[in-house]
């Protein structure tokens, strides 16, 4: 179970939300994350893609226990972090960090950049006083900011610079795993490329392992070694990046890849086979993608497909893999 080359192993992770009403509680849960399993090797980047509401962010937060999962196991270096008590989790926190999507909301506007980046160093008693300031300056340098930026406040920075601050905070305690949740989605195109380059440089310099969550397939393909595709709380396909783009096996993945706008006007896509969007009803039997699937058959309505290996670490959850 705990082979050493895996930094993170997630097994049967579930996160259900229950709607509470004033006089009754609707016990039919929203299955934001519904029984997903995957592993990430040390130094590897796993991209997690899917459309809004597919559960990718909830999955990322559940793994670091920023939200408490409903059930499942999450092994970080062989330790099931869902079994840890507060103190145990606190000790492990520096090793696992999170980068948020919105660089405007995730930084405390009343704290100076130096305090934001140095807070972890102080809390975890790594450094304080002058030594802390020196460490902060060094970290700011690593993310392309100037040491004197430590004295400024977040509002003085542009979106891209703020995301650099968020990244500086995440790497301040020498983490091994970083969960990055749509780290460039809020940024302009030219700034996105700068931040992606920074994340790739830091991965190489610091030997980081990423779970990279995004809705943008181009970006995920660029940065990831392997890619996992989610749909309505389930994982429908996992494969090496090149392999996934060369032979997408799940009909949903095929539709997603076809929908990416090409950057070549001579190759304009002609056909988009996806059926009309459809409001998900959770808790139904069968394959969740079946109502939108162009190849749906009777079996898909009654029997849920499991994620099965189709060779070369290419996993697909579909009864009728072409």
């Amino acid at each position: 179970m705990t082979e050493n080359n895996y930094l993170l192993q997630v097994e049967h992770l579930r996160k259900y939300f229950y709607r509470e009403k004033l006089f009754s509680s609707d016990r039919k849960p929203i299955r934001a994350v519904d029984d997903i399993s995957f592993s990430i090797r040390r130094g590897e980047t796993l991209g997690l893609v899917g459309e809004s509401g597919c559960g990718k962010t909830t999955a990322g937060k559940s793994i670091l226990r920023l939200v408490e999962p409903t059930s499942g196991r999450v092994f970080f270096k062989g330790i099931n972090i869902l079994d840890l008590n507060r103190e145990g989790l606190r000790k492990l926190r520096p090793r696992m960090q999170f980068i948020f999507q919105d660089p405007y909301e995730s930084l405390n506007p009343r704290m100076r950049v130096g305090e934001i980046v140095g807070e972890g160093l102080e809390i975890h008693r790594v450094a304080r006083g002058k030594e802390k300031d020196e460490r902060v300056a060094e970290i700011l340098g690593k993310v392309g900011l100037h040491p004197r930026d430590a004295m400024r406040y977040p509002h003085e920075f542009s979106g891209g610079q703020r995301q650099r601050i968020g990244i500086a905070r995440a790497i301040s305690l020498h983490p091994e795993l970083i969960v990055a949740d749509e780290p460039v989605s809020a940024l302009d195109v030219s700034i996105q490329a700068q931040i992606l380059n920074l994340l790739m440089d830091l991965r190489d310099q610091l030997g980081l392992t990423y779970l990279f969550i995004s809705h943008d397939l181009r970006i995920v393909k660029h940065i990831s070694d392997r890619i996992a595709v989610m749909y309505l709380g389930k994982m429908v396909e996992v494969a090496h990046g090149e392999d996934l783009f060369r032979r997408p096996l799940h009909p949903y993945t095929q539709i997603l890849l076809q929908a990416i706008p090409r950057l070549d006007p001579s190759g304009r896509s002609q056909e988009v086979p996806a059926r009309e969007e459809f409001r998900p009803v959770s808790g139904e039997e069968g394959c969740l993608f079946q109502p939108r699937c162009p190849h749906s058959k009777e079996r898909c309505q009654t029997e849920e497909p499991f994620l099965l290996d189709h060779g070369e670490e290419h996993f697909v959850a579909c009864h009728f893999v072409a």
Partner: protein
Amino acid sequence: MIKKPLLEIRSLTTHFLTEDGVVRAVEDVSFDISPGEILSLVGESGCGKSVTGLSILKLIPSPPGQIINGDILFEGKNLLTLEEKEMERVRGNEISMIFQEPMTSLNPVFTIGNQIMEAIELHQKIDKKEARQRAIEILDRVRIPSPEARIDSYPHQLSGGMRQRAMIAMALSCRPKLLIADEPTTALDVTIQAQVLRLLKEIQREMGMAVILITHDLGVVAEIADRVAVMYAGRIVESGPIESIFGQMRHPYTRGLLESIPQLGEKKGRLNAIPGQVPNPTDLPAGCKFHPRCYLRIDECQRGEPPLFQVQGNHYSRCLRWKECC
């Protein structure tokens, strides 16, 4: 193109007077668009693309905004000299606009049918019953399933893609000659985006309507536009037919934008990112506004704003060294 342009914009300049100084949002922008053409204004946040769209409809909040200079000729008449009353007859009728976030543009307390009918009744002399019939037809046209039932839905009862379709239906209800679409698919998921773009293109063809598509996404541009104008810091820096621009970019900013996007085919490595940041709009650099970030810059770039150079046909670039670019 022998066709007479539907809309001609000449030297449009829109400024905002703020506490921090004058924001030169749009500076000396000129372009035109013919009937049945899709022109895309592309650029990053703050480049002036949305302000250009709003200026055409005279929807710039004033104060602080003000159209300082220019002419906006729609079928030969200058919109900038029209009285507000006359302008109301143009808005929503001859020129309509759709916005990025359908939820903030639709009124949550009225059904989508009410909102579509309001536009029809306002501009065309027909009764309620006929207006309702027209609204159902137009909902059907934007491929909303069972429009007879959906017409009585409230915006919150629809999904994001359906709401954007309802917005498009409302904008098209009076058969405008020009549609200004400001980031119409940015808030949508990629599969829904593909459907909505395709719908826009189909309807545009059927109705022979002209479209100004405002977007930050070169992928969307490549997918549906006929012509492109790339904006940076309030100016058009490069413009031309889509094949010409994507075939041979002649401005370092356009090239930088394209190279910032990861390619699907290539092996991964560092992206060719544009260094630096978009300049502060109250404190723009002298000369070419892009020169501090440009890999081709020479001393001359700081001296004066470069003019638009003709690359070929109607492909223009505002770069002194356009011949060396790309």
